[in-house]
């Protein structure tokens, strides 16, 4: 074929660009990404956005309703709710990212081991089933409460609670991909277990994992709020979504804004992540239609 004939063919788009343009055509993804990005930007630029300190008491400004100075009002210590919510978002997002990494790494390792090494499968998955049999929020509360309330322990607790399901999802896709002909080809070429597993199998089982991790992020934001609400999250005065709501509970009637706004921001963040997950799932795995 001459070069002229080649030029006449339509230019092949890079797979990455195709993927991105399909993502940007997906309405769920775009709305979700916008919502989530907004919350992320708030958290990142917290100290630029608000002039207040999250833990600065101001007893002359106790329980003030929303106003020009305090958009979301103040709590019973006179702390600015908007400031606390934004800093709380920073903490929640950090915990969310850490748990996503935790469950991504351990879920992948455990799931890959179970799916690839058939002899390990039964024992590993029965153990994961057992962990999954505990209602995950209860498992997280137990771990966080027994280890003591602190940020690393909350991450560990939620990581342990979310990993079995992640492992199950990775295992399921590894089971499918390991039977593919290109894996057999790699094995015939003399590739070792590690190379086959990481370069051939896992690289082709990523789609369900990415979708799962987005939903994990959403559920971790909710679960962290529950833990802090129950008093086993990061210890006060650290601003957390659940902690602010728990503080506002005693003033729900005279100062509903203390409870209302942090909940709305949680809803906003989780909604964004769920939409993001829906969009990613539509684009990455066209077989599942929702």
């Amino acid at each position, binding site marked *: 074929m001459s070069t002229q004939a080649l030029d006449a063919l339509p230019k092949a788009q890079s797979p990455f660009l195709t993927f991105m343009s399909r993502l940007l055509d997906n309405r769920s993804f775009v709305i979700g990404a916008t919502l989530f990005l907004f919350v992320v930007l708030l958290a990142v630029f917290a100290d630029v956005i608000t002039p207040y300190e999250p833990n600065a008491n101001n007893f002359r400004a106790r329980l003030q309703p929303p106003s020009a100075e305090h958009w979301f009002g103040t709590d019973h210590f006179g702390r600015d709710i908007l400031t606390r919510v934004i800093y709380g978002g920073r903490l929640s997002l950090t915990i969310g990212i850490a748990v996503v990494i935790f469950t991504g790494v351990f879920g992948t390792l455990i799931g890959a081991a179970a799916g690839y090494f058939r002899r390990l499968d039964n024992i590993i998955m029965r153990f994961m089933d057992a962990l999954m*049999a505990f209602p995950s929020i209860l498992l997280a509360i137990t771990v966080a409460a027994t280890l003591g309330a602190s940020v690393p322990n909350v991450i560990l607790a939620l990581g342990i609670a979310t990993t079995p399901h992640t492992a199950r999802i990775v295992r399921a896709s590894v089971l499918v991909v390991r039977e593919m002909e290109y894996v057999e080809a790699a094995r015939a070429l003399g590739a070792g277990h590690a190379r086959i597993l990481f370069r051939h199998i896992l690289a082709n089982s990523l789609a369900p994992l990415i979708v799962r991790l987005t939903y994990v992020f959403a559920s971790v934001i909710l679960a962290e709020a529950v833990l802090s609400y129950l008093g086993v999250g990061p210890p006060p005065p650290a601003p957390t979504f659940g902690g602010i709501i728990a503080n506002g509970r005693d003033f729900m009637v005279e100062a509903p804004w203390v409870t209302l706004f942090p909940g709305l921001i949680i*809803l906003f963040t989780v909604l964004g992540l769920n939409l993001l997950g829906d969009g990613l799932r539509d684009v990455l795995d066209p077989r599942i239609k*929702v």
Partner: protein
Amino acid sequence: MRNYLIRRIISVLPVLFFVSLLSFAVIWIIPGDPTAAFLDASATPEQVEALRDNLGLNKPPLLQVTEWYGQVLTGNLGQSILMRTPVLTAILERLPLTLTLAAMALVLAVLLGVAAGVFAATRRGTWADQTVMTLALLGLSVPDFWLGLLLIVVFAVQLGWFPSGGYVPFMQDPAAWLSSMVLPTLTLAVVQIGFIARMTRSAMLDVINQDFIRTAHAKGLSELYVVTRHGLPNAMMPILTVTGIIAGALLGSAVVVEQVFALPGVGRLIIGAILSRDYPLIQGGLLFLTLIYLLINLGVDLLYAAVDPRVRLE
């Protein structure tokens, strides 16, 4: 069918073994001495020793585990340290409330969720579909404890329709009982309605495009008949799966909702036990809740086999 039943029941046993081992291991996970949670610094070494003896901590681990299994298998879950009552009694007293709450929420969630999902699927792409699905997504993104607090402010404090918390036993006053259960049930159901609606819609969409549905329409059957008799039964499997998962999630959420509405259920009992480190109660409570969860899932699997003959032939 019987073979399937037996195989499925046997497969629960190893899970049960791990679950019980994990419940027991709680006492080992804690850094430091478990007795420190119950005794202050002024406790004499004799008091510490007495408590360690009481908790069985002075025995070799293997013996501890064996004894724990011996007790559990005879229905003895030990003595609650703080309440000074047998763990089993404490749990059984509060279990009916938790199970009723979860069951009411599950029924509500399945009825509304399936209805919403079918409604949306049959109007795919219209504004009605989009509205229902947006509501479903909002439902599953809302923090349940926060929703509970809002419901209390609006329906208990402002409108005064329902009590803001607390519990009236059914036997004492059925009307007051129902009134005390409305808001917790609603709180618990909202998230799950969202899940079921989404799953139902997606399962229905898979079915609706198949040939036999077109045939049914071509025969001149009414839309309602086609959807309820041809469509829904074939979409039941994924809906059942999600219902099984939800039954487990409901047990977890019930723990939180009981806390918000001050309902004296198992969840509140376990949270109290966890926060005060009442180990026998934590172990017994966790074991009990997971046992219920496993039974529910076993039930769902058996339902599968009843609904779909392919499952039991596998």
